[in-house]
């Protein structure tokens, strides 16, 4: 198992290194000089010495390898440059926006696991019953409903018609835990809806497949009750493919997070990265790209570890 994790970790590091290089190169290949483009309004572009000064200030006159080395060294030590838009340190900006987004991701994942897994299990156990049909319908809706529309409907229902929850806004947890939770209920639910539906589907079909296996018949032949068969013999193998789906859902959440953060006015990373793209704010873009990569790699690693725990066959393979 330790060896298995070690190999995975090594993989992750190699990918991370590649992405760092790629991120740097992409910034180099961007049409126009990013810094200058962003500065176009504030300096006189015909003043060659002023342009030169700015290029020097951002190290753009150095050979590319040196630029990369410098950039990497600074990046690793937490100096991620300053945002071209606001002039703020990218690291500070990033860290400030990290916790709302993390909270959003966590909340959404809790929703999707809390709804998706039980719904899938019930659907499998009561397959083809009215309950199953209802759950499958709900699942379909959950998977296909557009996030922005769902958000607006929920705000209308739970903040306007029945004003139980705040319609938008964000309060850090440590300032006001209760208000924080209340204001995050809707956004996390909206962000988690899609993966809840996806999970329910996967859990249902995975459990159904496992229940048809020979070893489940063996468990029944031992005299276990149906409930014991499911809890002791079926759930663990049925969760193996589901873990991947949870990991994928988490890795793909940033896209959804953008909508949710805009609609609910949450100052998070999703919004920041989209703004950065529009503003050609490349220090911010680089930081988010690497953060996204890191996020995906970490989640994959976690999924692999869980996989190894759930499926002993994986532990020896490779």
């Amino acid at each position, binding site marked *: 198992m330790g060896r298995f994790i070690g190999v995975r970790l090594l993989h992750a590091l190699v990918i991370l290194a590649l992405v760092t290089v790629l991120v740097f190169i992409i910034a180099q290949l961007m049409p126009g000089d990013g810094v200058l483009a962003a500065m176009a309004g504030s300096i006189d572009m015909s003043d060659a010495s002023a342009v030169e000064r700015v290029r020097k200030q951002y190290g753009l006159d150095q050979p590319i390898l040196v630029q990369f080395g410098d950039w990497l060294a600074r990046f690793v030590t937490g100096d991620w440059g300053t945002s071209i838009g606001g002039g703020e340190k990218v690291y500070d900006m990033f860290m400030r926006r990290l916790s709302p987004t993390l909270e959003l991701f966590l909340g959404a994942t809790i929703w999707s696991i809390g709804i998706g897994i039980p719904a899938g299990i019930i659907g499998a156990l009561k397959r083809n019953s009215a309950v199953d049909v209802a759950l499958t319908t709900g699942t379909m809706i959950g998977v296909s409903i557009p996030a922005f529309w769902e958000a607006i409907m929920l705000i209308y229902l739970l903040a306007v018609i029945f004003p139980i929850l705040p319609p938008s806004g964000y309060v850090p947890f440590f300032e006001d835990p209760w208000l924080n939770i209340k204001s995050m209920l809707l956004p996390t639910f909206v962000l988690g809806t899609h993966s809840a539906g996806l999970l329910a589907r996967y859990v249902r079909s995975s459990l159904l497949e496992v229940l*048809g*296996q*020979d*070893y489940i*018949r*063996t*468990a*029944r*032949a*031992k*005299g*276990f*009750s149906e409930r014991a068969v499911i809890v*002791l*013999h079926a759930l*663990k*193998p049925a969760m*193996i493919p589901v873990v991947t789906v949870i990991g994928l859902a988490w890795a793909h959440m940033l896209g959804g997070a953008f909508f949710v953060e805009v609609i609910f006015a949450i100052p998070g990373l999703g919004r920041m990265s989209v703004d950065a793209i529009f503003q050609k704010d490349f220090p911010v873009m680089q930081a988010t790209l690497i953060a996204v990569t890191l996020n995906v790699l970490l989640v994959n690693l976690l999924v692999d570890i869980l996989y190894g725990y*759930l*499926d*002993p*066959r994986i532990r*020896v393979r490779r």
Partner: protein
Amino acid sequence: MNDAPELLSVRNLTVDFATAEGLITAVDNVSFDLREGEILALVGESGCGKSATALALLRLIANPPGRIASGSVAFRGQDLLRASEDEIRDIRGNRIAMIFQEPMTSLNPVLTVGRQIGEPLMLHEGLREEALLEKCVKLLESVSIPEPRRRMGGYPHQFSGGMRQRVMIAMGMGCAPDIIIADEPTTALDVTIQAQLLELLRQQVETHRTALMLITHNLGIVARYADRVNVMYAGRIVESAGADDLYERPRHPYTIGLLRSVPRLDQPTAAKLVPIPGQPPDALRMPQGCAFHPRCPFAVARCRAEAPALREVGAGHAIACWVDVDG
């Protein structure tokens, strides 16, 4: 041994499967008895309904698509087909154990072998911790798994096919059941391991007066181990006899054909092997009358019209055939 107390009495057992193409009667009106200390073989070609019969005894037929349409299975006087869920669960794995045909897929891949062997003991005998561990180690030893203590923590994929089948057998013997149903316990194993495992089962039968229902299509195994034989064809028992009797005087044309189609040690090597012509019938298009008549060299007009019931043709020897070919 014929006067040993009767343990299991199966009457008119019928099992259906609803498939996309139509209803299959996999087991058709099957009746037989099983006595203490008896080894009863159930033989027949692939698909004739051997596994379905075995599964139906413990109500383990997957439903859907399967269904026990009718019949009764009396175990020590209690009808298992009408017992409550709790009652049948108390018997499964405890009084009647089943060893499945597929050793590669019948063990849970994500649970340790030790745990899976221990489960029936935990469930039915309430064994825990030390006592459970000791008993499991003993069981694994009895099926000659080397280093049983260490192997307990292993997973099925770390065991060879033969070892897995031994694990299955150990699992079945744990609660010292009254009946062991072994569904082709040794197919796909090499001959030495086969013999070893069957010896093991025979010992269990001899020392504990366990009844063994041995499902196989290996007639060599039948000749060597079984006391009685039920020959199945297309869902029905077509011949039932003592093992020696059956080999000496097979009386159903199907059995005769079956015995001619495999090499036998008790006959001159020159005896020619004759395969039975034709194919077993399609379960969806069962022929009218006796299901064997299209392949039967002795078929008469009545065979095409009417299915024969089992009838006594000698002491403890019954056949389902209109023509008694013997003599």
